[in-house]
């Protein structure tokens, strides 16, 4: 038992050491090996150094800007948006898989309807991934060495931000009775359409693997995509039960986000678009500096 606990401590110490700079990580692990410190004591020693290093880094303003401008607002928005995407498309997926039969093809509008569902699903999924990638990229640029703490906080807000709430799609209880669509699917969507792109965005910044031209083009495309996906974003903020950001005031046309709904929600899109704007400005600034 003692040996198992010691090994767990060693594994945790190695994990904690990954938060240190590579050169310091080697030195510290060498010191601990030389002093014969291992297990839980090694873990606490490394954790102490990591805490001091992080405290020093967080005395700068940039990590706080990352938290205030990206982690909290965009993390929360994406929590709402993925909640809506997962629930809305859980119903569509089940309609076109479980409930489909050959008589559907007799309905004259079926190609258009299917194309519309596919197009809007792809558009909003692309927007989710794009917002997440851009957020990860800007997060890494604002807080290079605090990035992992910031992304962990981002994940926490993404997964827990809408805990205890539901979308109106859940009124269709039959569609969410199963464990997959009721529990697994929303988490899977958050992981695949938000966390993976955000981590990839961080990785791209750290490796400087994206050319300036590609960055600028991608940022412009994301701004256009945000404009196209604005109704989806607005729906995700309003069509909920329990705690939600803004009550739906649909107006006579019974649609969210239109001029008659007495509560235009387009400013929400501005929040989502700012990482793309920041990327665009940084590429423009680099062009100015190099010329």
């Amino acid at each position, binding site marked *: 038992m003692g040996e198992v606990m010691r090994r767990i401590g060693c594994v945790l110490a190695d994990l904690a050491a990954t938060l240190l700079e590579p*050169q*310091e990580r*080697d*030195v*510290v*692990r*060498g*010191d*601990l*090996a*030389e*002093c014969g410190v291992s297990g839980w004591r090694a873990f606490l*020693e*490394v954790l*102490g*150094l*990591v*805490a*001091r*290093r992080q405290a*020093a880094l967080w005395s700068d303003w940039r990590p706080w800007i990352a938290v205030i401008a990206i982690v909290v607002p965009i993390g929360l928005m994406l929590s709402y948006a993925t909640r809506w995407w997962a629930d809305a498309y859980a119903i569509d997926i089940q309609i076109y898989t479980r409930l489909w039969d050959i008589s559907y093809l007799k309905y004259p509008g079926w190609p258009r309807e299917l194309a519309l569902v596919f197009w809007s699903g792809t558009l909003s999924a692309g927007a989710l991934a794009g917002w997440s990638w851009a957020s990860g990229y800007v997060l890494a640029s604002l807080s290079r060495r605090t990035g992992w703490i910031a992304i962990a906080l981002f994940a926490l807000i993404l997964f827990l931000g809408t805990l205890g709430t539901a979308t109106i799609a859940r009124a269709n209880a039959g569609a969410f009775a199963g464990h997959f669509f009721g529990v697994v699917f929303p988490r899977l969507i958050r992981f695949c359409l938000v966390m993976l792109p955000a981590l990839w965005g961080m990785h791209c910044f750290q490796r400087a693997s994206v050319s300036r031209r590609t960055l600028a083009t991608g940022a412009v495309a994301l701004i256009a995509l945000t404009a196209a996906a604005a109704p989806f974003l607005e729906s995700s903020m309003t069509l909920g039960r329990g705690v939600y950001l803004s009550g739906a005031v649909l107006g006579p046309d019974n649609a969210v986000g239109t001029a008659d709904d007495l509560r235009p929600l387009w400013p929400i899109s501005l929040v989502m678009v700012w990482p793309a704007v920041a990327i665009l400005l940084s590429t423009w600034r680099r062009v100015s500096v190099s010329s």
Partner: protein
Amino acid sequence: MLLGEFEYLMLTAAARLGDEAYGAAIRQEIEDATGAPCAIGALYTTLDRLEDKGLIKTWMGDPTPERGGRPKRMVRLTPKGVDAATSFYNAVRRVSRGVVWAKS
């Protein structure tokens, strides 16, 4: 430049160790002298601070087998560090003059 007591302990340990001054050895010296544990977090953040103040110079040493092939962070006092430690030591001596540490 006035030092903190831990900074003074580190400068003194590094001076005593000479060419063999590096993280783990300084830590051992301080623990032997004070009888108290020296946290690695305190050690390396203080080394950074002393280097920022220009009181020490550090560089990466060669890896050794007893360290699992990992390098050492070697430490050497700069002339400014020697001056700062000397000032601190003299200040402690002056302020202690005539004081007898006995419980009444």
